[in-house]
C-alpha cells in the first residue's frame, strides 16, 4: 500500500537532498512544530517524569469529523532532532485516517538516507515516535472518539 501523499512527498524530497540540506530541513521542521495548545497541557503534566537524560515526548492524537487524525506534540527545544522528526511525521500524517497511519511500513524512511544527517540512535527515536503514533491510531480506531 502506498504512503499518504504528503508523507511520500517528504520522503522524495529528502531522498534528493544533500546532507546539509537535510540538517537545515530538520531544523526548520523542529522550529515550525507548533506549541502545545493550552487545553492539552494538563494532560501533558500527567506524564510520568522522565529519569536522566532522555527526551520527554508528549504526543496526543484527536480524530476529526472526517475521520482523519491530528497529532499534537510537546518536545523540548533542547532536543531539536526528535522535535524535527516528530514535526516531519506530523506534517506527513496529519489528517490521515487511522488505517492509513497503521499501514505506513516501519522502514518507509529508508530512501530518505537520514543516517547522513543523524545518528542511528536518533533514527531509533524516529521509529519510536512512529510506533507511538500508530498506538494512538489504534486507540482512535477502536474507541471511535
Amino acid at each position, binding site marked *: 500500500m502506498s504512503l499518504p501523499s504528503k508523507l511520500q512527498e517528504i520522503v522524495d524530497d529528502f531522498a534528493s537532498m544533500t546532507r546539509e540540506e537535510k*540538517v*537545515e530541513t*530538520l*531544523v526548520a521542521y*523542529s*522550529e515550525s512544530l507548533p506549541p502545545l495548545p493550552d487545553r492539552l497541557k494538563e494532560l501533558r503534566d500527567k506524564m510520568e517524569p*522522565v*529519569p*536522566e*537524560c*532522555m527526551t520527554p515526548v508528549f504526543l496526543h492524537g484527536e480524530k476529526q469529523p472526517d475521520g482523519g487524525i491530528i497529532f499534537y506534540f510537546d518536545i523540548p*527545544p*533542547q*532536543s*531539536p*532532532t*526528535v522535535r*524535527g522528526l516528530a514535526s516531519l511525521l506530523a506534517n506527513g500524517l496529519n489528517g490521515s485516517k487511522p488505517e492509513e497511519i497503521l499501514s505506513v511500513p516501519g522502514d518507509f524512511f529508508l530512501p530518505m538516507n537520514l543516517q547522513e544527517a*543523524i*545518528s542511528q*540512535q*536518533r533514527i*531509533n*527515536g524516529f521509529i*519510536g515516535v512512529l510506533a507511538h503514533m500508530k498506538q494512538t491510531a489504534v486507540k482512535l480506531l477502536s474507541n471511535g472518539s
Partner: protein
Amino acid sequence: MPYVHPEYLVETEWVAEHLNDPNVRIIESDEDALLYAVGHIPGAVQVDWFSTLQHPLRRDFLTKEQFEEVASNIGITNDTTVVFYGDKSNWFACYALWLFQYYGHENVKIMNGGRLKWEQENRPLTKDVPSYQRTSYKAKDPDKSIRAFRDEVREQSDSKKPLVDVRSPKEYSGELISMPNYPQEGAQRGGHIPGAVSIPWSQAVNEADSTFKTPEELRALYEGKGITPEGEVIAYCRIGERSSHTWFVLKYLLGYPKVKNYDGSWTEWGNLVDAPIEK
C-alpha cells in the same frame, strides 16, 4: 580549596570575552548534533562525536592521520587553546576533549555549564557557520595512559583495583541495559563489571545549570566511595561518553594522576564472551 587543575575549566564569561581571540577555537560537541545548526556560540565550529570523531569503518576513533585532517580543517594549530562545550552537561564536550588529549592536544578547556548555562544567561547564538584558514596540524601518537582497553579492564577487575561505573543505578544493577527510556539495545547482558562502584556521572554536576560541583563536594563524593587519588582508576559507562565526563572530573578537577576512560564500556563488556559480570 580550588580545583587541582583549574586551567582546564573556563566560565561562560571567559568564553564571551574570547569570541574573537585568534588563539582560541571554540568547539561545540553535542549528543543532539542538530543543536549546532539551531544556533551556536558565534565563531564556534562543530565536532560531532559520531560523524566527525569515529572511524568510518571500525569501532574506534579516527586514526592519527584522520584526526590531523579534522584538526587542520577547523584551523587549529598545536598551540591553539581549544574550548569545548555542549548539551547534556557537557558529556560529549568531555568526550571530544578526551579524544583531543588522546592525540596530544594539550591546551584544552571545558566551558563550565555548557550550552545550558550559556542559554540561561541569554548569551548570543548564531546560525552562521564560520570558516577558518586550513592549517597543517600534527598530532602525537595516541596517549594510551588515558584510554583503557578490555584486557586491562579485566586485569583491573581481577586485581580489585578501582573501577567506577558512572551509569544510572538501574543500568548498574542490570535492570536496564541502556539508559532509562533509551532503546534497550547494544548489550547481550546486563549488570556491571565485578568490583566496580556505582557513582552516577550526574552526581558531579549541579542540576540547575550543569556546572561542576565544588572541589569539596566532588572529593567527598568520590573518596566517600573509595575512589582516591592514589589509585589507578578506570571509569566506564555504556559507550564512553558519560565516563569521559567523570574522567575529566577525576583527572583535572580533582587531579588524580592515573585515570583512564574505558570507551568500549558496557556495549563491549556486556557482549564479551566469558567476561565476568556482577548483578
